[in-house]
């Protein structure tokens, strides 16, 4: 038995807002693959509270494309739905690749992309990719709707900018942020499944006609308390040709911009080594995929 004091199956966003207004401690639950694990571990905030189930709310489902080419991913899309979605496969394949590496099949069948982000883990497999696509989070509350860039949403380890009564409804990616880009995501872990990344890295690259780098975006997971973009490496890369010297310099800048740590999963030294080599591997893999 989970130590919860009640369960509501919400049928609309308005219902969620109403319940949370009356009880700000009530916890929202989607697939439950994080919330119920924390409840079982008796983590503070996850026990002796009521749960609000949100998986049946219509506005939060489905993956669509607007007329201007903006992709809109319902926060309740499961990892499997994202992986198999034709729009994702055609326009933002790196996201499908990234979420296909979450946990095991059972987790991907119920775990949601919105939950992955709101959980606030730096190791979330969808996060680095969404950072490189400059995703915008559409957050609803009783007061209205706000759109928050994903980079501003993450505040610290397990800490995101989401107040009680605010619900992540959709994740949006503008056409300019995916058109013409190639990407590759690496989840560096001990096992190929049922594991959490020692380090993860999403790399998105756009080439100019003269075969120099027009734009490069790199985001690491587990290289800092939150997913983190690499401003120095990205600024340096613009206009460079792809060769050993360029790739090495990108690695050096990444080391300067990351803040890795020791943990039982991997040492700081190991992570610092990976930080320097994985972006180069990703760039080459992304470019190879088109040939």
């Amino acid at each position, binding site marked *: *038995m*989970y*130590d*919860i*004091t*009640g*369960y509501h*199956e919400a049928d609309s966003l308005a219902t969620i807002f109403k319940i949370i207004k009356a009880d700000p401690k009530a916890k929202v639950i989607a697939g*439950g*693959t994080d919330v*119920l*694990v924390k409840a*079982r*571990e008796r983590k503070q905030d996850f026990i002796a509270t009521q*749960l609000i*189930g949100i*998986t049946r709310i219509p506005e939060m489902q489905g993956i669509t494309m607007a007329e201007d080419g903006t992709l809109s991913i319902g926060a309740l899309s499961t990892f*499997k739905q994202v992986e198999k979605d034709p729009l994702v496969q055609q326009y933002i394949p790196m996201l499908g690749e990234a979420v296909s590496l979450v*946990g*095991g*099949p*059972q*987790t991907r*069948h*119920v775990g949601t992309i919105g939950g992955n982000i709101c959980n606030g883990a730096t190791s979330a497999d969808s996060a680095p990719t969404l950072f490189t696509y400059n995703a915008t989070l559409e957050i609803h509350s009783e007061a209205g709707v706000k759109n928050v860039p994903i980079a501003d949403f993450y505040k610290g380890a397990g800490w995101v900018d989401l107040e009680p009564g605010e619900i992540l409804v959709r994740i949006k990616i503008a056409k300019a942020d995916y058109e013409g880009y190639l990407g590759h995501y690496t989840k560096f872990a001990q096992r*190929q*499944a*049922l594991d959490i990344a020692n380090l993860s890295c999403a790399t998105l690259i756009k080439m100019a006609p003269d075969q120099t780098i027009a734009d490069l975006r790199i985001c690491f997971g587990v290289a800092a308390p939150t997913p983190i973009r690499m401003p120095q490496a990205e600024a340096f890369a613009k206009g460079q040709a792809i060769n050993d010297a360029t790739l090495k310099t990108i690695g050096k800048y990444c080391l300067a911009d990351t803040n890795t740590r020791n943990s039982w999963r991997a040492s700081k030294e190991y992570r610092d080594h990976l930080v320097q080599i994985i972006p180069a591997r990703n760039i080459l893999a992304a470019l190879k995929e088109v040939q």
Partner: protein
Amino acid sequence: MNQTIEFTLNGETRHYSVDVRQSLLELLRDELALTGTKEGCGVGECGACTVIVDGETVDSCIYLAVWADGKTLTTVEGLAAEDGSLSDVQTAYVQDGAVQCGFCIPGMVLSSTQFLEDNPTPTRPEIKRALSGNMCRCTGYQKIVDAVADVAEKRQENADIAPVNFTRHA
């Protein structure tokens, strides 16, 4: 703290008043006495508690019982025919010696069964990926993968033969 839910379990419609604090695993084992579904880790990492919900495998230990409302569930008890004869997946597990201590097997069999529905002609890497959410701590993975590959092969053979020479009469 009970809610009444309606669901289809192994082909049978059920109405049940469930405690909202209960996991689906607890409902199955403690209330419905369907103890074929096992509890391993209890946190969705080992797959021993795998059941099929609306055509997808889920870890029933981290799935609230109330979520079964309106859904169709299959547990390992629902695989054999009414006369007790095993499904082809179960038979292959037995014939290939894929069962060691047996604790992971109900989950393995359910993952295999649903996977072969979704992908009737799998490669070995695809089988491994499909079973990657189920851990076997006897580490007997090769024969489990063999069993799934054998079922796919046998079904394929039967399908190849069937339309050519005979029409089946009900």
